[in-house]
């Protein structure tokens, strides 16, 4: 019904990319990279999410209204995460008066 939709070719390429990324993230976990392990795992997860969202969920071809809803969801997620973390990790900054 949309004016433009992805082709079978696009779906297949995205699927292949997702499989390669899944293999990559599994492989990297077995190599000691220090803190970079976490960064790599989350970066690959983010790329995989973008591929699924843009092509399988067709956000690339979606209207502005749909994109705003998605961005609103992630904006609220950012609020939850950032405000909660800011609270928890700044508690030790202020010395509370002892008993």
């Amino acid at each position, binding site marked *: 019904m949309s004016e433009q939709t992805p082709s079978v070719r696009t779906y297949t390429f995205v*699927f292949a990319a997702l499989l390669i990324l899944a293999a990559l993230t599994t492989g990297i976990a077995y190599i000691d990279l220090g803190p970079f*392990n976490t960064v790599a795992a989350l970066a690959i*997860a983010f790329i995989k999410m973008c591929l*699924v969202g843009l092509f399988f*969920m067709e956000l690339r071809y979606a209207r502005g*209204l749909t994109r705003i809803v998605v961005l609103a*969801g*992630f904006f609220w997620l950012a609020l939850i995460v950032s405000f909660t*973390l800011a609270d928890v990790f700044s508690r030790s900054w202020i010395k509370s008066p002892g008993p």
Partner: protein
Amino acid sequence: MSESAAAHPLAAPSAHRASPALHHQFEELQQQYDASTFGMWVFLATEIMFFGGIFTAYIIYRSLYYSGFVAGSHGLEGDFGAAMTFILLASSFTMAMSVHAAREGKRVMLIILLLATILLGIVFLGIKFTEYSHKWHEQMVPGLNFHPSVEELRGAPGTAVELFMCFYFFMTGLHALHMIIGIGLLSVMTTLAWRGKIKRDNYDKIEVSGLYWHFVDIIWIYLFPLLYLIGGRYK
């Protein structure tokens, strides 16, 4: 909304004659399609926040009880995690192809692809069940049966490992519940397709089910590294 329809009550808008799939509250098929997908995206936005709260809690407790989370992560079976990831990605592919088949009006192809998606979902849940039963036998189930060996604790406090296992069961359990709902949804869609109820002008049902299925896949895309990989599997 339509001024012409208001001015001439007896003159039905042309779109109503064009398709029996058009519900009376909509002007045209494109508007109906847009409303369906918009509704599902709003629901998915609430789901992002729903899972987001748990992910936030995970980040905080992981930083507070790091050793326990690393030990717990090492105790999970990485091969199972990887296998489930590949299976779920494959199911997302067959789901995307289902939407494509529905859009092209290919009924038999649609049914085959929907059944493939359901099958992959069931295989995923089967592996998950096997993993849960392994955890039970290893006595790693918080509250009910938690007696880990010294080796499994890897020097971390037992309570910290127990906390990780709480997150593991809660996050994967909630994800599995979404999978079960998704399989139910796709079963209904398969039945509709079987009866020939899915046409090129009302395939938005398949599209919307697909959005839900892909969302559940995205949750797993994050659960896999967070639970299985992030502790590093090299030690």
